[in-house]
């Protein structure tokens, strides 16, 4: 802008003739331009070095300690989370929520069941795509306890906007308690309402898609509900997990999250309330 101001004075002159600078001016300009170009190259080179060393540092930060391995599978539009373990009975399955121990690296094995998604918790690490047919790896590690929102970062269809996940970092002992709780089969109904709710669940189409350990419900295409009551959110981060929200979600899923794949089930009046009681009890 200073440049233009400099020339404003000259503009008033009559300008019939074309301005052809002297050879000396051209020469001087050549030197300036060449110098600026070289400077650009040097700056870019410095940036390149910085970028590469940062990348190196990041990858060297990598898992030094023994960590845990978690398999994350993308689905339209929710996250399937599975804590791997050599002992098959100690595998933990959950959805849209991941608890991790503070100070221990978590290896992620990323895969997809349908389209390409991308796993991204901005506060923990960069993003990595989940691609059908291949397994990408990534690791995260939390330095202090906390909760972070993660989100699908690759456009994956109608409800791409509502495909979030919470990563919850806890101290080691708390994490282990959580794991133990998750390993347990679902809590048995403890009241008449909950018992009725379980029957409603088992006698409806819910069982074709959802799994609740300890009951005959063994569907595999939708989130595992064994401990659904313990989760923070519903429908992949769309709603806070409250009884009211859950009721709205079951009664009219398309209203809450248009386009999602959850079947709409018309429950007779009076069935919804016990069902909610039962599901909320699955801590």
């Amino acid at each position, binding site marked *: 802008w200073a440049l233009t101001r400099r020339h404003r004075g000259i503009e008033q002159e009559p300008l019939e003739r074309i301005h052809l600078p002297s050879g000396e001016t051209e020469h001087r300009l050549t030197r300036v331009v060449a110098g*600026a170009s070289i400077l650009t190259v040097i700056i*870019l080179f410095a940036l390149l070095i910085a970028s590469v060393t940062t990348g190196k540092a990041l990858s060297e930060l990598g898992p030094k300690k023994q960590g845990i391995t978690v398999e994350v599978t993308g689905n339209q539009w929710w996250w399937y989370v599975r804590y791997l373990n050599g002992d098959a009975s100690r595998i933990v399955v959950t959805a849209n929520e991941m608890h991790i121990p503070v100070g221990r690296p978590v290896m992620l094995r990323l895969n997809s069941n349908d389209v390409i998604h991308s796993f991204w918790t901005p506060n923990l690490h960069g993003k990595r795509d989940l691609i059908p047919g291949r397994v990408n790896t990534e690791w995260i590690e939390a330095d202090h306890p906390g909760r972070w929102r993660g989100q699908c970062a690759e*456009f994956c269809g109608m409800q791409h906007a509502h495909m979030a996940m919470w990563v919850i970092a806890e101290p080691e002992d708390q994490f282990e308690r959580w794991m133990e709780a998750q390993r347990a089969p679902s809590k048995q109904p403890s009241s008449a309402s909950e018992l009725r709710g379980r029957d409603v669940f088992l006698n409806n189409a819910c069982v074709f898609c959802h799994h609740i350990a300890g009951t005959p419900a063994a569907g595999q295409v939708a989130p595992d509900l064994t401990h659904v009551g313990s989760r923070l959110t519903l429908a992949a981060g769309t709603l806070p997990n409250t009884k009211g929200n859950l009721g709205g979600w079951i009664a009219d899923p398309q209203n809450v999250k248009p386009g999602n794949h959850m079947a709409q089930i018309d429950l007779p009046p009076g069935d919804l309330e016990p069902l909610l009681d039962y599901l909320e009890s699955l801590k």
Partner: protein
Amino acid sequence: MTPVTEPPLGEIDDEGERRALERSWRRRPGIAGWFTVTTHQALGKRYIVTAFVFLLIGGVEALFMRLQLARPDNPLIGPDKYNQLFTTHGTTMMFLFAVPMMEGMGVYLVPLMLGTRNVAFPRLNAFGYWMFLFGGIFLYAGFLTNTGPDAGWFAYTPLSGPQFSPGKRVDIWAQMITFTEISALCVATELIATILKMRAPGMSLTRIPMFCWSMLVQSFMVVFAMPAVMVASNIFLLLDRTVGTHFSNAAEGGDPLLYQHVFWFFGHPEVYIIFIPALGMVSSIVETHTRRAIFGYPAMVLSLVSTGFIGFGLWVHHMFATGLPQIGEAYFTAASMMIAVASGVQIFCWIATMWSGRVHMRTPMYFVLGFVFIFVLGGLTGVMLAAIPLDLQVHDTFFVVAHFHYVLIGGALFPLFGAFYHWFPKFTGRMMNDALGKINFWILFVGFNLTFFPMHILGLKGMTRRIYTYPAEMGWGPANALATVGACIILIGGIVFIANALASRVHGEIAGPDPWDGGTLEWAADSPPRNYNFVNLPVATSRYPMWTPPEERVVVTGVRHDRREALVTTLMDAEPPIWPFITALLLGLGLVGATFRFSWYYPAFGATGIGLIGWFWPRRPEGVRS
């Protein structure tokens, strides 16, 4: 080779030649003339106007998206419509606005700048225009019937594949690509032949105007990049969707990532296909409005060429998040940064030109300075994106959205507006209002920065792109609201521009052939140019033939005027033919029919062959004119 001699002084029957040319280059009257026109001025103007209409449509779509995002949990537009909106917006801006617009400017200006009468293949030019128009109509026919594509403008498989995008939406997208890529390839082919073979006598490579260089490099990039999108969208995507091949089906050995590789092998050069002509426009504006030969012409040309070269090696930097070999990071980053050097050289050369020239601060120069400012910012964020650790954070967020709007709007749209103001007198014979132009610039400049600067911050705060809504607790609301306000200001800027153009067309100051005292040959023609451009074809005695005194300028004689003749290419079409229109129509019907598998698409493709035969049927031997 002729030795150096003074060209002789000759007598020219100016009026007589003009009459002869008017006769042989006249247009057919009436409707027939509209469908058979093959002069480059008419077709170039059509390209420009049609592409501008698509710019407006794409802009309105963007405005709707901004309104939806203005506040959290906004119920204004649902996810389905929103996804169609951003896909159609991106597709329109890339395929129906930016590329055709640049090509339209090329079609209009290149023959004038080279001092010839038409492009090398006028019928192909007409065919290309019709294909572009039909493709655009096809896409919007789909959009208006709620069949607009919704898988993003790069339609990644498997989301766009048969399983996850049933229906015709993605088919329409892919077939629209066919239309526009045929059109782009037609224009690229004819511009290459025109620039290489039809330059004015004496126009050596070192005398070609910068804009023509940029169109040449762009055309070569189109020739080598468009086949990749042909493979991606027409082969991988359409065959997978229609006949059940397995290119993207991981279960049968296919790989969805290959689609990305091939798409970006086209998609990255595409950015330069849009941006390089804009560089040429900036050079034209700068040299004219500083009254000074462009500084560092050879360096400028070489940096254009190297941009063209390097553009083909950078596709991977769209795919850092897909899990590439970690060992390659340094290489990818270095390659991505190389392109910044080429752009840097250009910018330094313009600054040097302005520095040592006499800057006339008319509207085109405002847009050039605005371009430099915005483009440098976009370039800086580009360098940031080349650094992989950073890219993995901001990839697919609003930071990237901000970055490529800075590069594309700053790098292509601002020069384009400058170019409109610069060449408007050539197009219409009248000047655009300069005061209104400056107001127009400031509105656009402020609106643009207000819209897109906050997006950098949104991206850094974690807002991913292509989401139709976001929860209030993320705290993205205020910046989004600001961006929406900016978008409305851009709309006002657009209205001011249209008003200025329409008013100036009728009431503007009469321009005359050379209102800016420009140096290149397009200023030698009338404003607006006649169908034959020049009564006597000019000879390029220097890089700026119009800056030599009139008495030293040289013209060509001995070209026949009783038929459409130009130098080197000899004969043009005897009569404006209808065949390009018919062929485009038939091929268009075939492609549309194939999309919907109507039973008539085979006959339509067959009839296309007949159209082509009619097109290429050798004319009567010349001289035997009935």
